[in-house]
């Protein structure tokens, strides 16, 4: 199983501005200390070996879109959410379809808020008459949400002009589904208008959990055993870690999001192997996210009781082999 992150930012798409790029360049030049490099390969070796991620790269700014590749027999695309990262995924999907990849997309919706659907009007394969797009959701109003954002007041291309064969299927918590090359389970989560987490199991038994936009309410901590059970023994848990724990129980309570601290605790109880910090706060800079990542690794070390949990910080373009 391969998990590919096309969009990792929460709430609103963001982009690096010139001053942020300038600071990265200045830090890199200082780190180079006057050295010269014979070619780009030598420069890249320096970047990989000596610069931190916030200097050498960026966590990116597209909103939620994740692809899961299983290498299974049916070979359909598996996509979680239709955030702005979907646009680039669509371009890459065309490249792969030109090479013979089946033109079938199974999409799994966490929920229908704007940042999770905003990429769909820009999804090239939706205009391809040879493509089939099946949108799975726990919500009964998924079709209404996608049609509404393409009404004339918001977008110039109406939903009915899309040429792909588009279907909507509703999934129910507690049931197990075989869709494409994966077994799928769904879990209701606390969020405005409800959100759903997904547990994907491939033919090799590898498990990836997608749990975004999920607040773990302070008054319902006993119910977290059910969440840990949903995460049980997962090879990868992609988890909403938008706020600090203090913010999530004070100023930003009831905003529908979780923290790195709770995500790590849940993964420890679940005996999950890897956690990807996800749905990054749009006001956070690359330096902020790098600090969040380092602090999360440290918290995991401090609170670990059994086998270690590897803590990753998702970024646009990250690929994880599960």
């Amino acid at each position, binding site marked *: 199983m391969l998990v590919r992150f096309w969009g990792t930012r929460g709430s609103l798409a963001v982009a690096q501005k010139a001053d942020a790029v300038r600071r990265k360049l200045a830090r890199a030049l200082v780190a180079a200390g006057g050295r010269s490099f014979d070619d780009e390969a030598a420069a890249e070796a320096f970047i990989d070996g000596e610069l931190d991620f916030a200097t050498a790269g960026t966590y990116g700014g597209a909103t939620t879109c994740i692809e899961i590749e299983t290498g299974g027999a049916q070979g359909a695309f598996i996509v979680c959410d239709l955030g702005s990262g979907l646009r680039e995924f669509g371009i890459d999907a065309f490249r792969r379809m030109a090479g013979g990849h089946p033109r079938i997309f199974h999409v799994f919706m966490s929920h229908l808020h704007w940042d999770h659907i905003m990429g769909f009007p820009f999804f090239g394969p939706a205009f391809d008459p040879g493509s089939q797009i099946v949108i799975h959701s726990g919500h009964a109003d998924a079709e209404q949400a996608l049609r509404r954002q393409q009404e004339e007041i918001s977008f110039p291309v109406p939903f009915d002009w899309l040429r792909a064969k588009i279907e909507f299927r509703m999934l129910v918590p507690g049931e197990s589904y075989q869709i494409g090359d994966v077994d799928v389970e769904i879990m209701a989560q606390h969020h405005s208008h409800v959100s759903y987490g997904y547990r994907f199991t491939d033919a090799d038994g590898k498990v990836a959990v997608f749990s975004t936009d999920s607040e773990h309410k302070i008054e319902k901590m006993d119910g977290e055993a059910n969440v840990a059970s949903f995460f049980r023994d997962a090879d990868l848990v992609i988890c909403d870690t938008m706020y600090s*724990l*203090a913010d999530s129980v004070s100023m930003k309570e009831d905003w529908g999001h979780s923290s790195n601290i709770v995500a790590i605790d849940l993964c420890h109880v679940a005996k999950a192997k890897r956690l990807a910090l996800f749905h990054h706060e749009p006001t956070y800079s690359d330096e902020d996210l790098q600090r969040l990542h380092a*602090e999360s690794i440290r918290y995991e070390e401090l609170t670990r009781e059994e086998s270690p949990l590897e803590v990753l910080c998702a970024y646009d373009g990250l690929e994880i082999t599960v």
Partner: protein
Amino acid sequence: MIWHDEQRGDGIVALPVGRVDESTAQDFTIGLETGVDRAAGTGSKKLVVDMAGLDYMSSRGLRSLTLAKRKADGLGVSILLAAPNGVMREILAISRYDKIFAVSDSVDAAL
């Protein structure tokens, strides 16, 4: 986790010992709520949690502190954290709980 609290001067000092995690958070919550009730009857209306005996605390314990703070706010009681060890100090910083609770180096400084 073992809970003990006592009146010291004009406030209540709680002395939890051990680890606060999923298995012990309930006892920690009950201890805190009892401590808040007792502190409400003191002149200073302070509950000082002496953290020197705590090895570490997971999010369950931290959120128990928040629940206790909500009760305390309603009774006019202040909860203050004192003398955390190095691990606890790191956890308070990483969770940003050091922004929503006053943290002192010693119980005497908190009282």
